[in-house]
Structure formats: structure tokens, C-alpha cells
């Protein structure tokens, strides 16, 4: 047989095999997590023995439930996206619509470099900021706000890129007709280009939420702890779902905590899948 034919057949066989293997892997991960989480999947998962309503608002501490970690993660993500989104949309507009020539290319490069940085370096940045701050404010410490700022720094380049690319991909005719209508540049950007680019920006934003939600390396150095309950203010330490999963992988008190960590992994995975599915749906719609 022709050697090329051998290679072709091998490639087809291997790729089919691999596809099946990775489908099996997804099922394996799901099944394994489900099995481990089974004892914890009941009404007590979030709040444990604490009464639900007072625990929800943090009046009663939750010792054996996922609520503080879930709430911490949600607060962290909300804050981080709240900080990063306005900043990065404005920066994306700058790169797509205003920056030109050499300086424009430099701005692209710097944001792309930021996107490539290991997340642990973002965490270290927060840690270094606190070291410096302590020279002025001796009691400065890592906290929810600091972690949110660093996570914002982590997702900022993705959001800038999403905004920039969505604006660049607008059809040239749309730009021409906005100009021919006599709209000024800022009017065209705010009332025509941004609304037209919004599905792309939104799907970038959802992916950024996913990144912020799953990150551990940044918050590890900027204020996450294993057990503290709900943070009372922006300057408190906080718990987070992915951190709880990581800590439990190294050490755990009892079987119930281990089962809760499995449940937390399942929960985190479903949240991520949900975010990804939404983003894909949006991308499809913006393409059609």
C-alpha cells in the first residue's frame, strides 16, 4: 500500500479514537464528581444546619455548607467585572477607533502581553501593592477589594480584545452610512457602532465572568481564606468556591467536607458550562 494511504488511514483511525476517548473523559469526570458528591447533594448543601434565611444574609454563620464560598465567589466576580468592564470597553474603543499608527500598535501589543501573563503574576502584583501600601497604611491587608482589582486586571485584556475585535469586524458599509448621515465620530461610536458590536462584547464579557469565577492563582495571594463566613465589607477576607475545592484536595476535616468539595466542583463546572453555552449562543446570533 502507498505510504501516504497508510498515514491517511492512521490519522482517521486515531482521530476517531481520540474523539471517543475525550467524550468518555467528559462522562468519566461527570460521573466521578457525581458519585463523590452524592452524599452532599441534599437540602443541606448550601447552608448545612444553619437556618436558610438568616444564613443567606450572613446573620448566622454557616459551618458546613457551600453558601459562604458561593457568595464570596459571586461577590468577587461582580466586583471584578464591575471594575473591568467600563474600563475595558473604553480602552477597546480607544484602540479600535482612535489609536493610529505606531502608538496604536504599541497599545495592541501591551494589551496582548497582559493577556499572556500567568495569573499568579497578577496575584503577586496585588501582594506587592499591599507591601507598598503598608509603608503608608500599616494595617493595609489583602481583602475582597484587592482580589477583585487583581481579577479585574486578569480579565481586562480579554475584554479589551473582545471590544476591539467586535468593533473592527463591523461591516464597512455601516461605518460609511453612519458617516454619510452626518453623525460625528462620538455619535457614530455611541449610537451606531457600540450597539452593533454589543453581542460580541457581551459574549466576551460572559467568557470573562467564567475566567474570573474559576481563577484561584490570583485570589490565593490576595485575600482568599478557607473559613471566614461572608465578608462584612470590601476590606474583609472572603471564601471562594474554587479555593475551597483546592484546599479540600490537600486536606479535609471529614467525609462530609470531601463530599461538599465534590459538589462544589460539580457546581463550578455547571456554572462554567452555562456561561460558555450562553456565550456561544450569543456568538452564533451575532454571526447570523
Amino acid at each position, binding site marked *: 500500500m502507498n505510504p501516504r494511504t497508510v498515514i491517511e488511514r492512521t490519522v482517521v483511525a486515531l482521530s476517531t479514537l481520540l474523539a471517543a476517548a*475525550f467524550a468518555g473523559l467528559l462522562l468519566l469526570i461527570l460521573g466521578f464528581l457525581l458519585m463523590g458528591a452524592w452524599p452532599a447533594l441534599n437540602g443541606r448543601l448550601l447552608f448545612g444546619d444553619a437556618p436558610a434565611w438568616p444564613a443567606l444574609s450572613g446573620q448566622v454563620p454557616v459551618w458546613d455548607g457551600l453558601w459562604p464560598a458561593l457568595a464570596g465567589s459571586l461577590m468577587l466576580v461582580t466586583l471584578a467585572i464591575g471594575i473591568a468592564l467600563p474600563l*475595558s470597553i473604553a*480602552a477597546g474603543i480607544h484602540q479600535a477607533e482612535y489609536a493610529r499608527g505606531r502608538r496604536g500598535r504599541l497599545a495592541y501589543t501591551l494589551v496582548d502581553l497582559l493577556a499572556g501573563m*500567568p495569573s*499568579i*503574576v497578577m496575584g503577586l*502584583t496585588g501582594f506587592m501593592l499591599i507591601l507598598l501600601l503598608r509603608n503608608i497604611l500599616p494595617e493595609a491587608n489583602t481583602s475582597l477589594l484587592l482580589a477583585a482589582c487583581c481579577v479585574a486586571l486578569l480579565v481586562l485584556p480579554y475584554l479589551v480584545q473582545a471590544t476591539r475585535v467586535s468593533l473592527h469586524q463591523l461591516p464597512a458599509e455601516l461605518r460609511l452610512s453612519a458617516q454619510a448621515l452626518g453623525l460625528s465620530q462620538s455619535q457614530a461610536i455611541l449610537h451606531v457602532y457600540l450597539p452593533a458590536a454589543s453581542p460580541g462584547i457581551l459574549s466576551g464579557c460572559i467568557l470573562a465572568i467564567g475566567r474570573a469565577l474559576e481563577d484561584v492563582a490570583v485570589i490565593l495571594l490576595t485575600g482568599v481564606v478557607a473559613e471566614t463566613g461572608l465578608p462584612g465589607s470590601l476590606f474583609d477576607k472572603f471564601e471562594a468556591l474554587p479555593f475551597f475545592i*483546592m484546599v479540600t484536595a490537600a486536606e479535609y476535616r471529614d467525609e462530609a467536607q470531601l463530599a461538599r468539595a465534590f459538589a462544589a*466542583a460539580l457546581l463550578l463546572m455547571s456554572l462554567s458550562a452555562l456561561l460558555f453555552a450562553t456565550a456561544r449562543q450569543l456568538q452564533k446570533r451575532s454571526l447570523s
Partner: protein
Amino acid sequence: MSERLLATAAAFAGGIAACAVFAILALLLWLGLPLWRDPALLISLAGSSWNPAAGEIGLASMAAGTLLLAASALLLAYPCGLLLALSTLGLAPRPLAAAMRTLLALLSGIPTVVYAFVSVWLLVPWLRDSLGLGMGYSWLAAALTLGVMLTPTVALLLSGALSPTFTRLQAAGDALGLSRVQLLLWVVLPAERRALLSALLLSSGRAVGDTLIALMVSGNAIWLPANPTEPLRTLTAHIAITLAADTQSQAYAAIYAASLLLLAYVALVHFLTASLSDESAHRH
């Protein structure tokens, strides 16, 4: 008036985004000052003995650990990712290919911590108890986990890079009587060598930057492994572990040096990728 306002606000935000890199670099250099001023300590950086109390802060074995882990994970992830990308592009029957894309998207969406967690409770015990490979926490375990985690990402990256060329050439290939696999292997792949290389570079950046899998699965021994069943430590994990445990200024200084090494790698990857795409832009 509003014209100026929007332009100024956008330029301000653009400035912040662009300056972040310089700010991080400046922080690292500034806080690392004690280290840059101490020649003996600087020289010890290049060694492989880590004993901050004795003034030895060698990063060599961690740097080698990072490269070993990243290279071995890519050795698994890149060929697998390429094959999976080919199968979504056209090796698999059409409905199956669509299902494959969804599967890859789902897998690439699984948080890193979940991969590491599953690995700790499934792969590590299997290596330890069934295969009898030492503690289980090892270079091998970390490489397998990182490789599996990177595969769907690599596959999606490659299928995105190859699909425009494939779609463009499909009609011509059909007219010549080429099968899909022939078109992909002998026409599309050679035409997209640069895209293949830049995807490799990009995923190597991801592999080097990973912290969690290295931290949770690799065993974190501070010496170099003699074989894949022994533990190793990466620069990223070293940063996390040192900041959690040490409070000595020498140890901190080494952390700043480790971060600068990582950033240098990221920058190298970026400029290599950029020069690749520049050259291909000149060609077309």
C-alpha cells in the same frame, strides 16, 4: 464638547490598560532592589540549591521543572489537539463533527481547579496504588493532567486557525477528487505551517503559566526529578508556595526574579508569534 469627552475618556482607559504591563514590571524591579544590589545572591539565582536562610536562592531546578512540565504536557496535548481539530474540520461525519465541537467547547470550559481536583482523587491514587509509582504526585501525573486540560483548547485554537483555509479550498479539492483527509493532510496543513507553529507557541505560554495543576498534582519537590514518576516544582507553584510559607526578604526577592523569568518567556512567545504573523502578512 462631547466629542472631546469621549476621546479623552477612551484615551485615558486605553492608557491604563497599556500601562498595566509597565506598572507590574516596575513593581517587580522596585521590590526586587535588594536582590539586584547583592551580587552573591544574584549569582546564587542560577544555581539549583534553595535555602533562603543560607542566602542560596537557586531557581534553576524550578525553571527546568517549568520547562519539563510544559514540554511534556504539550507533547501530549498538541498532537491530540491537532487530531481532534482535524476530526471537527471534516474527518468525522457532519453531525458528529458538530457534536465534537460542542464536546470540545464543554471540555475547554471545565475550570482548571476541577481538572486538578479530579486528578488528585482519581489519577494520583491510580498511579500510586494500581501502578505502584511512588507517591503518585509526580511529574507524570501533572503532565497528564495539564496535557488533558490543554488538549481541547489546542484543538479549538487549531480548528479556528485552519477552518478558513479548509473552507476556501474545499470546492477545489472536491473538484480534484481529493478526499477530505487528503485535502487536510497534504494541502491545508502544509499551507498553514505558520498557524500551526503559532498555535504551538501560544499553548506553550498557557502551559508555562499554569499554576494550579502544578501546585496540586506535581508533588512540589524542590529538586529535579530523575524520572517522570518523581515530583517536581514549577516557577509558578514556587511563587505560590513561598509566599504562603516564607517571610524572609531573600525568599521574596527570588519570587520577583521568578516572575521576571516567567514574564520574559511570555514576551518571547508573544514576539515570536507576532513575527510569524507579520511574515505571513507580507507573503499574502
